[in-house]
């Protein structure tokens, strides 16, 4: 039973169904509109990739948004210079961010622990500052890199694609998918997410992934066991950098704009928070973390007293007003407060992030119904893969 549930094809099947049906089951939460669904998928990719570095090796990078930003810039430049087809844009985004990750990773991985973190942070801050100001000819600074009608788009010109009035839209081979607008964008991102998740799953369950986890557990031992740990770390760094580049490229593919703020330290911090919130080193956790943070950012921030009244409509009037008054400070402009509280509550009560809460919950259910050793669905590997806590430093 356990074996079947943890088999890769089954996990992938369940995962794909869950992801692709998101527009349906997210409807009650008011989160089923295209833009947010796209953000879920894209930041999910970012977090899943980040987890390959942080979750497996324990190296806490504070500069991964740099690669996301570089991916976005690369993709937009591909739209400007080459073609509006998203495939070359995304591939180029991954290559270019991979190259940057190789250089930054090579230098930063000469140090470990917090020294590594600060090195990545320093590189990221330099990239951000330069992109915001001095590199404006490449990045268009604060406004962000945008498409214009006059862009050359050499490949499209060669292919004889006519220039229309207004800005062209990104597409996949012109006819296959005409535009990345709306749900199309989501489904493209969702398919990429499924592939990205599959690769992450394979890495987690490969000897390579096990070695990365061993590095996290005891790097000194790895060296005396005959492994050169630096190339392993660098590979993980570059893979996660390319995931970030992929996410950045997708962001630009769906909405062709790339801004420097995507590379700010707060953006790098966000992916760290997503990963920890969901559960470091678990397969699904980072994805959950990304979803929760993006949900707060987009839905909680938009609630105002009008909407609250609608939500609490079912209560008697006195209660309704009371609830609106109580909840009011935590939504709308107060959404940061709620997010801060969620961070604290999760980390205080669930040291392993939300995934730990979920596995506790399944344990609880099991106990109540006196069921056997049936594993938690979807992500059985979580239990094996999750990091053990305590004893740090």
């Amino acid at each position, binding site marked *: 039973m356990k074996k079947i549930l943890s088999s890769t094809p089954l996990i992938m099947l369940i995962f794909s169904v869950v992801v692709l049906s998101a527009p349906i089951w997210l409807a009650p939460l008011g989160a089923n509109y295209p833009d947010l669904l796209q953000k879920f998928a894209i930041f999910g990719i970012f977090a899943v990739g980040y987890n390959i570095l942080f979750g497996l090796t324990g190296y806490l990078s504070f500069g991964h948004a740099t690669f996301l930003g570089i991916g976005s810039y690369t993709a937009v430049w591909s739209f400007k210079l080459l073609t509006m087809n998203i495939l070359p844009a995304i591939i180029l985004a991954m290559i270019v961010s991979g190259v940057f990750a190789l250089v930054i990773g090579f230098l930063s991985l000469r140090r470990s622990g917090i020294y590594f973190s*600060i090195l990545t942070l320093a590189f990221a801050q330099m990239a951000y500052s330069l992109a915001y100001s001095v590199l404006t000819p490449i990045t268009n600074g604060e406004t962000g890199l945008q498409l214009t009608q006059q862009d050359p788009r050499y490949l499209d010109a060669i292919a004889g694609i006519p220039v229309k009035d207004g800005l062209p839209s990104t597409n996949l081979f012109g006819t296959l998918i005409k535009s990345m607008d709306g749900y199309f964008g989501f489904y493209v991102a969702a398919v990429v997410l499924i592939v990205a998740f599959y690769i992450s799953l394979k890495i987690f369950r490969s000897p390579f992934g096990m070695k990365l986890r061993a590095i996290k557990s005891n790097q000194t031992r790895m060296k005396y066991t005959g492994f050169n740990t630096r190339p392993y770390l660098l590979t993980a760094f570059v893979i996660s950098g390319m995931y970030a580049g992929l996410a950045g490229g997708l962001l630009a593919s769906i909405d062709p704009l790339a801004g420097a703020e995507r590379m700010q330290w707060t953006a790098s911090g966000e992916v760290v928070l997503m990963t920890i919130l969901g559960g470091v080193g678990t397969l699904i956790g980072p994805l959950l973390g990304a979803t929760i943070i993006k949900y707060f950012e987009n839905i909680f921030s938009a609630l105002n007293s009008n909407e609250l009244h609608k939500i609490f409509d079912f209560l008697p009037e006195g209660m309704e007003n009371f609830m609106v008054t109580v909840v009011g400070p935590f939504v709308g402009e107060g959404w940061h407060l709620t*997010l*801060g509280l969620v961070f604290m509550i*999760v980390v205080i009560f669930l040291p392993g992030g939300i995934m730990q809460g979920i596995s506790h919950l399944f344990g609880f259910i099991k106990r109540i119904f006196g069921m056997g050793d049936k594993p938690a669905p979807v992500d059985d590997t979580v239990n094996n893969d999750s990091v053990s806590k305590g004893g740090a430093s």
Partner: protein
Amino acid sequence: MDAILIQLLNGLDKGGAYALIALGLTLTFGTLGVVNFAHGALFMLGAFCAVLFNKVLTISAKVKDESITFFDAYKETPYLELWWGDTGATIIDYSVPLSILFVIPIMLLVGVIMERGLIKHFYKREHADQILVTFGLAIVIQEIIRHFFGANPIPTPAPDVVAGSAAVGAFFGLNENLVYPWWRLIYLAFSLSIIGAVFAFLKYTTFGMVVRAGMADRETVELLGINVQKRFTIVFGIATVVAGLAGAMYAPILPPDYHMGMDFLVLSFVVVVVGGMGSLPGAVAAGFLLGLLQSFASMNEVKAIFPGIDQIIIYLVAVVILLVRPRGLMGREGVFED
């Protein structure tokens, strides 16, 4: 030449501020082994103690503005001045330095509550967890401050006598254009004395010796066993007070707003790490080094050669130092490396 001199002074001034802000952070790192992302928020809280003190002192009577009927204006003269005359006015004028008396107990209380209530449960947890919980706390503190004070910066002036500039150049018989704000000179002196006081405390008291032993080897502290918990609380309290003092005295230079802590957070981390984790002299040295370099990198002559260098100099130097010296300027092996 004059330009270099004044940038030197400016660099020292900046360095003093950086060192002071980083001091508490490195203390928490070194002794408690906690990565405190709420340190910036504590700095901000200190500044808002000064703001609050000023606001309380300047409470004045509401008057109806006759010309416009919908809002209340406030009388020019606060109650304090009405009651105590010139004495009251002087107290208001000196509200920022006086607020120190008020910052110390408040921040100590905040520190103790924070350590007892939250931080102590995170000593044995992973750094990632420490980051998440303190970052969450920082956001919560920020939002509470915003709720009461709004998002805009609040002017918190220095006393009138020191609001202007000191003729530094004339004093040393140099170019008389060489002036420097009094308050910044005071801040430099203030940070040096606080740094000195913390060092003296650690060096010449038995308590300090235990703490230093702890910074050198955390396990030893635990083995000592005698009231280690209490000492940790006090150390955290000291770190909080230092952060608060740094913030309160900074208010005249940078009108405080709820987000100022986050703006300083990254910088203070860079200073601490460049100095070497857990090394107090390292943090001070790194503070001054980065302050001076930033000052000189901002000179027009330098920027003409390297455009944008002033924006990245701190990070560039951090990268170079960390690549050349594995543990920063004065860090020791094994601290925060896993």
